[in-house]
C-alpha cells in the first residue's frame, strides 16, 4: 500500500470501526488494571509463567514426544502438521472418515491461521463457529479484529442490523440480550447436530495428554463432549509439561484478557473423555459413557514455529498465551483496531512476531509501523514478552529485505550504519540527532526554510512528512552552548551530589528551556552539574527499526558518559524515552556490564529531584503551588518513574490531575508521518479531551515527553511545559 492508500484505509477504519473498538478495548484494559490490583502477587505469577514458557519452549522436542506417547496411550491420535496445508489435509480426512456433514468449532486462532473452515467447506463439510463473536463474523464474512474479542469492531447496533438482515428472526432483535439469546439457540442447534467437534487449546499438558481450554460461554465444553469425535488443533508452542505448571496461567490469563479474576470455564480435558456422547438423534437413550466409542485427534501445528524457536529474536513470541492484553493496552490499537493493526491472522503488538514467524515478513510489514514502541504492552503482557523489541527487530529485517535500486546512492549520503533498503522516511527520522544539529547550526534560516510551503510539499511527497504538522523549531543556542557560556557556580566543587546531565537532541536543540530548568533546579538543590556532549541515544533509529545505527549511537553515548561515571557522577536524563533506551534497550545494544552500569546510574530528572528532596535538600528554593494537568510519558510509566513527578508536585503543594491514556499518540516520528497523521491526532484527541473536561481545562498543562509536548501543543492551547520548568527557581 502507498502512503496515501494506507492513510485512506486508516481513515476508513477510524470512521467505521474506531468507536466500537475503543469502547471494547479500553473497557477490558481498565478491567485488567482493576483485576490485577486485587492481588499483590501478580509480578511473581508473571515471573513464574514466563519461566514455565521459557523452559517448555527449550524442551519442546521432548514435550512433543511425551504428548504423542501419552495421547496414544490414552486412546487418541497425535498428528504433527508441518504447515497449514498438511494440517488441513489431516483434519479434512478425519471429517471425511466420519462422513461428517457438519463440524462445530470453538474459538481458535490457530484454526484461523490455517483457514481450516475453507478447507473443510471445500470438502463438503459445513463449519459452525460456536463462539458468538466468531459466529457474528462468520455471518458477516469478516476477519477477526482482536485475538480474544474477534468482533470487537462491531457495536450492538451493528450486530443487530446484521442479524435482522441475515436471518428470519421474527421480531426485530435489538438488545445484546436478544442477540445473545438468538445466537445461542441458533448455534446450540448446530452443536446438537454436529458430527465432529473441534476445539483449539490454550495449553496442552504433555505428561497427561490434557487440553486446557479457557472460555466464558461454554461452547468449547459442548463442542468437545457432544459429538463422538473431537479434533483439537494447537500450535506446538502450547505444550507445557504438566498440570502442575497450570496455576499461574489459570490466575493470569483471564485477568490479562479482560479483568476477570478467573475465567468462567477452565476445562481440563484428557481425551478421549469419559463423558458420554450426547446423541440428540436418539433422544431417549440414557447417556452412558461406558458404551461409547469416542475418537480424538490432536493436531499439533508447526507452520514456522520450529524456525521461530531457533531464532533468538522471535523465540519469545512462542511464549504468547494470546490474551490480547498487548492490543488492549496499545493506544493505536484502541483507536483503529486489528483490521489495521494486524496481519493475515494475528492482531495487536505481538502479531508482528506471529505474522513474521508463520506467514512471513511481508504480512508483518503491512502493519508493523503501528507499534510505536511506547512499551505500555510490556507491563500488560502476562508472560513478560518484550513486544516492542520484537517489533523493532522485525522492522529492521523488513528494512533490510527491501532492495532498492538507488541503495548505493542513499547509503553514500546518510550518516547511519543501516543498509540502503531503509526507506527515506525512516532514514530521515532515524537520523533526527544529525538533522537537529544541522537545523540548530543554521537556525533560524533552517526553520524558515523548513516551514516554507514548497519545502513542506517536497517533504511530504518525498519523505512522507505530513504538512499538517508543525515542525520542531531549532534553537540557535543549544543547551550545551548555554551551559558552557555560563559562569561556574560558586558552590561547584563542594556539592554532595555530582551530576552529569545527558542532553538529548530535543532538549539540546529544540526544547532548550527544559534543559536549563533542569540545570537550575538541580543546582538549587545543592548538586554539582555538568552537561555531557549531545549524542543521539539511539531512540530515534530504534523506532525506525535501524538497529545498527542505534547500536553505534549507544556506543558513542556510553563512550561519552563513561568518564563521568568513573568519576562518580550520576546521570540525569530529561527526556523519558532516552532514559527508557538506557534502561530497557541498551542491554541489547551494549555489552552487559556497560549497559548495566549505565542503566543503574541513570535517573529521570524528576526522579532525581525526588531523591534529593528525600535526602534533605531544601524544597523551599523551588517554585511551589499551582493547579496542573499532567500527562506523564508512556515509556516513563512502563519504567514506573512517573510516580516521582507526582510525588514532587505533591510535596511542593501542587494540585495535580493526571491523564490516564496509555500514550499521547505522537510517539516520536509517528505523528509526523503522512500515512499515520490522522490516527495520531485521533489518539491525541482522547488525551486532549481529558484535559478539556470541566475543572481541568483551566489548569496549566504539563508533559514529561518531547513528543507529548508537541502533540498537546498542536491540540490544546496554550503552551505546555515540562514538570521541571514549573518547579525550577527563577
Amino acid at each position, binding site marked *: 500500500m502507498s502512503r496515501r492508500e494506507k492513510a485512506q484505509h486508516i481513515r476508513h477504519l477510524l470512521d467505521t470501526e474506531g468507536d466500537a473498538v475503543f469502547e471494547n478495548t479500553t473497557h477490558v484494559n481498565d478491567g485488567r488494571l482493576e483485576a490485577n490490583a486485587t492481588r499483590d502477587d501478580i509480578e511473581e505469577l508473571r515471573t513464574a509463567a514466563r519461566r514455565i514458557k521459557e523452559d517448555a519452549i527449550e524442551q519442546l522436542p521432548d514435550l512433543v514426544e511425551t504428548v504423542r506417547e501419552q495421547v496414544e496411550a490414552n486412546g487418541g491420535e497425535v498428528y504433527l502438521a508441518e504447515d497449514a496445508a498438511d494440517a488441513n489435509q489431516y483434519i479434512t480426512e478425519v471429517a471425511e472418515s466420519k462422513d461428517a456433514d457438519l463440524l462445530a468449532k470453538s474459538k481458535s486462532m490457530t484454526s484461523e491461521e490455517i483457514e481450516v473452515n475453507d478447507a473443510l467447506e471445500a470438502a463438503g463439510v459445513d463449519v459452525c463457529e460456536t463462539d458468538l463473536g466468531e459466529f457474528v463474523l462468520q455471518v458477516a464474512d469478516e476477519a477477526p479484529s482482536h485475538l480474544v474479542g474477534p468482533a470487537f469492531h462491531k457495536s450492538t447496533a451493528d*450486530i443487530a442490523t446484521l442479524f435482522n438482515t441475515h436471518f428470519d428472526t421474527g421480531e426485530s432483535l435489538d438488545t*445484546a440480550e436478544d442477540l445473545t439469546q438468538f445466537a445461542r439457540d441458533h448455534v446450540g442447534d448446530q452443536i446438537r447436530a454436529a458430527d465432529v467437534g473441534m476445539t483449539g487449546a490454550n495449553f496442552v499438558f504433555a505428561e497427561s495428554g490434557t487440553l486446557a481450554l479457557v472460555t466464558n*460461554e461454554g461452547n468449547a*465444553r459442548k463442542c468437545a*463432549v457432544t459429538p463422538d469425535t473431537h479434533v483439537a488443533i494447537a500450535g506446538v508452542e502450547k505444550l507445557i509439561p504438566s498440570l502442575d505448571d497450570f496455576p499461574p496461567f489459570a490466575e493470569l490469563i483471564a485477568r490479562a484478557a479482560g479483568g476477570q479474576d478467573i475465567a468462567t470455564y477452565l476445562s481440563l480435558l484428557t481425551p478421549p473423555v469419559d*463423558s458420554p456422547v450426547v446423541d440428540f438423534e436418539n*433422544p431417549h437413550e440414557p447417556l*452412558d459413557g461406558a458404551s461409547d466409542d469416542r475418537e480424538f485427534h490432536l493436531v499439533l501445528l508447526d507452520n514456522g514455529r520450529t524456525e521461530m524457536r531457533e531464532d533468538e529474536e522471535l523465540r519469545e513470541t512462542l511464549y504468547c498465551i494470546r490474551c490480547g492484553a498487548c492490543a488492549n493496552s496499545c493506544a493505536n490499537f484502541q483507536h483503529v483496531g486489528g483490521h489495521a493493526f494486524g496481519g493475515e491472522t494475528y492482531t495487536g503488538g505481538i502479531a508482528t512476531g506471529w505474522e513474521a514467524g508463520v506467514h512471513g515478513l511481508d504480512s508483518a510489514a503491512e502493519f508493523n509501523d503501528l507499534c510505536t514502541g511506547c512499551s505500555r504492552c510490556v507491563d500488560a503482557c502476562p508472560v513478560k514478552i518484550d513486544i516492542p523489541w520484537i517489533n523493532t527487530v522485525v522492522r529492521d529485517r523488513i528494512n533490510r529485505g527491501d532492495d532498492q535500486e538507488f541503495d548505493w546512492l542513499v547509503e553514500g549520503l546518510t550518516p547511519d550504519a543501516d543498509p540502503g533498503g531503509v526507506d527515506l522516511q525512516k532514514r530521515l527520522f532515524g537520523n533526527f540527532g544529525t538533522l537537529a544539529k544541522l537545523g540548530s547550526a543554521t537556525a533560524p534560516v533552517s526553520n524558515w526554510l523548513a516551514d516554507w510551503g514548497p519545502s513542506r510539499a517536497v517533504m511530504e511527497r518525498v519523505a512522507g512528512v505530513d504538512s499538517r504538522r508543525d515542525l520542531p523549531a531549532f534553537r540557535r543556542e543549544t543547551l550545551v552552548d548555554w551551559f558552557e557560556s555560563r559562569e561556574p557556580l560558586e558552590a561547584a566543587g563542594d556539592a554532595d551530589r555530582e551530576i552529569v546531565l545527558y542532553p538529548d537532541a530535543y532538549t539540546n536543540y529544540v526544547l532548550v528551556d527544559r534543559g536549563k530548568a533542569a540545570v537550575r533546579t538541580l543546582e538549587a538543590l545543592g548538586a554539582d552539574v555538568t552537561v555531557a556532549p549531545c549524542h543521539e541515544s539511539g531512540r530515534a533509529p530504534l523506532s525506525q527499526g535501524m538497529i545498527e545505527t542505534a547500536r553505534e549511537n549507544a556506543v558513542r553515548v556510553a563512550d561519552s558518559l563513561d568518564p563521568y561515571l568513573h568519576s562518580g557522577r550520576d546521570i540525569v536524563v530529561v527526556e523519558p524515552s532516552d532514559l527508557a533506551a538506557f534502561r530497557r534497550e541498551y542491554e541489547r545494544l551494549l555489552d552487559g556490564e556497560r549497559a548495566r552500569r549505565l542503566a543503574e546510574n541513570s535517573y529521570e530528572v524528576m526522579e532525581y529531584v525526588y531523591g534529593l528532596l528525600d535526602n534533605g535538600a531544601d524544597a523551599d528554593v523551588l517554585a511551589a503551588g499551582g493547579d496542573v494537568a499532567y500527562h506523564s510519558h508512556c515509556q516513563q510509566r512502563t519504567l514506573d518513574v512517573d510516580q516521582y513527578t507526582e510525588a514532587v508536585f505533591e510535596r511542593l503543594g501542587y494540585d495535580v490531575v493526571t491523564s490516564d491514556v496509555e500514550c499521547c499518540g505522537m510517539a516520536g516520528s509517528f505523528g509526523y508521518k503522512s500515512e499515520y497523521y490522522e490516527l495520531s491526532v485521533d489518539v491525541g484527541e482522547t488525551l486532549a479531551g481529558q484535559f478539556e473536561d470541566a475543572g481541568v481545562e483551566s489548569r496549566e498543562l504539563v508533559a514529561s515527553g518531547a513528543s507529548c509536548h508537541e502533540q498537546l501543543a498542536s491540540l490544546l492551547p496554550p503552551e505546555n511545559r515540562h514538570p521541571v520548568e514549573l518547579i525550577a527557581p527563577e
Partner: protein
Amino acid sequence: MRTDTIDEFAASLDGADVACTRTEAADLAAVLDDVVDDPAVGAPLGIDGVSLEDTTVQTPPTPQLLSDAATGVTRVHGGIVEYGSFVIQADEAGTEPVSLYPREHVGVVCASDLHDNVHAAVDWLGDEFDAGRDTAVLATGPSATADMGELVTGVHGPQTVHAVVVTDR
C-alpha cells in the same frame, strides 16, 4: 473448621453471582426439591447417605432430558474458596453434560471438598489425574459473553448457578 471456610466460599460464590444453600446430608433431598426448578435432570451424586431417588430430579440423563430440563443437578467434586469455583469431574454417567446443558445448574459440594485456592485445588487434582480421573472443569459463575457489545449471562452453559453445600460431609 468448616464454618469459616464455608462462609468464605459463600461470599466468593456471591461475588461470582452464584447462590448458596447449606444443608446437612439428611436434609439434602428436601433442600434440592426446594431449590431446583422442575423439570430437573441429575447425575448420581456419589455422596454417602444421599440419593437423588428421593427427589423430583430425574435420572439417568437422556438427550431429551438435557433439552427439556430447567435444572441440572450434579456433584461438585471440589470447591475453590477464593473464587467460588466449582471443580466438576467428568464421568461416564454424564455429570459434565448435566452440569452444562440445562439453564440452571445446581451443584452439590461437600464441605470437606473445599480447597483454599487454585493452587490447592490443582494439587488435589494432580492426585485425581494420577488415579485416572483426569478430566475436569473449573467453573466459576454462570456462562457469559460480551460478544454482542455488552455483558450477557446465560450463553451455551447455564444462566443460573446454585451451590448446595453439604456441611457434614
